[in-house]
């Protein structure tokens, strides 16, 4: 019987965020597919996992969790001894990692998500891209990446010397953005570009992409 169950959909960036962590930690798990086209995530059974009706959700015994970043923090703590260390035990190092986890969530993700939606997802759904939204958010993302470039010139990874959740949390949106015109903003910044090449080559992330390619 698998230790944990991840309820989600490989196409969802938030689901991919949790799957990346599960693979990094090498945890025995069951992936329970949530059929979003059939509206399964808005029905009562799934709402008992996440009252906001969004994937992913996690079951670990009796514990039910949602919000991908909260799930990942739980996994990183509960399974600290397994697989890759994704958080620091030292409180001061963890404080810095925590800062950059907030940066991903508050500064990077809003612009990156909007761009992914407009440039990668909408075309797949036959919807037209809002060029004004794209222009506004490309400018915002460029400013964020300027800060990343300075940070990564001093530090191999965002949180410090080691790969942590602060880096991992970027992977799903990076995947979608790299198939669009936004890629140039990453390529033109050498430290950012090297960091992206490093984190997207990780075996655990390649397993997530393999799962995605089966859909």
């Amino acid at each position, binding site marked *: 019987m698998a230790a944990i169950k991840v309820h989600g959909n490989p196409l969802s960036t938030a689901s991919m965020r949790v799957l990346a962590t599960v693979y990094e930690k090498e945890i025995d798990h069951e992936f329970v597919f949530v059929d979003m086209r059939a509206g399964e995530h808005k029905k009562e059974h799934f709402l008992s996992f996440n*009252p*906001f009706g969004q994937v992913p959700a996690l079951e670990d015994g009796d*514990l039910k*969790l*949602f*919000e991908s*970043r*909260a799930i990942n*923090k*739980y996994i990183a*703590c*509960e399974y600290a001894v397994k697989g890759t260390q994704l958080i620091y035990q030292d*409180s*001061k190092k*963890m*404080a*810095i990692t*925590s*800062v950059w*986890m*907030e*940066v991903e*969530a*508050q*500064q990077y993700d809003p612009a990156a998500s909007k761009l992914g939606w407009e440039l990668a997802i909408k075309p797949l759904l036959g919807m037209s891209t809002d060029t004004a939204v794209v222009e506004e958010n490309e400018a915002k993302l460029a400013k*964020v990446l300027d*800060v990343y470039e*300075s*940070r990564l010139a001093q530090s191999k990874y965002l949180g410090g010397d080691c790969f942590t959740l602060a880096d991992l949390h970027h992977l799903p949106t990076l995947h979608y953005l790299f198939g669009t015109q936004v890629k140039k903003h990453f390529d033109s910044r050498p430290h950012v570009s090297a960091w992206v090449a490093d984190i997207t080559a990780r075996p655990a992330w390649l397993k997530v992409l393999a799962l995605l390619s089966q859909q």
Partner: protein
Amino acid sequence: MSSEGDRFKVNMTYSRGVHGALFSTCTARVWIYLCEKGLDYELLPIDMVAGAHKQQPFRSLNPFGEIPAFEEGEVSLFESRAINRYLARKHKDIGTDLLLSNSLTQSALVEIWMEVEAHKFDSPSSVILRQIIVIPKYGKAPDKQVIETEMEKLGKVLDVYEERLSKSKYLAGENYSLADLHHIPHLVYFMKTSEANAITSRPHVQLRHCFHQANRCADVLASMSIDQDAECISFNCPPVDIRSILEDAVGLYVNRVCFVSVVPG
């Protein structure tokens, strides 16, 4: 004549401090945590009107040029929620443990509802407060369509909160945590707007979130800040308006040294 850099160096000799301004909800988020714990930290004002937050030396504390930033010894942090997480972990044995760190299950629930606040509550409430409170200060009229759209989003989020709080005393469970505290800055301003009935019409949300001690102090401070022209006011001791809230069993509102008798045997 000392330069801006020298002034900042002098400030850095303070052992611990929050750089920011209390009218800012993000600075308030950290300050309310410190009030909750009864801890003595300096508030180091940032001259937002002069754009100090966008320049050095502040930018060396937060490369995004936003308040607050936090310093304590060699630790230098930004992002209010990260600052609070660090402090709550550090101070878990002082007063209430706001991360519920004795149980991984409970602390996971705190993390969930902190994420909910950050990703679902913060955005619509920020937009609404900006329209109703900030934009009129620049002589412009609020955009009613924007307010209506964001209120609809916020309403759906608050419906989930109402359901949650009908089963659970606080968001993460039976104990007050950072997940609840992080909502206070926006809630305090929100309750002063014409949209406050979104809270008052939901009995469990109103009961749990609007009648906690720190809310009362934050409420008074927010009221004072709305009526001020100055960007930042720093108090050396609690202003008259909140002393009665802070008074303890012997009628004092300031910290003092108490001698604890040791019973032999």
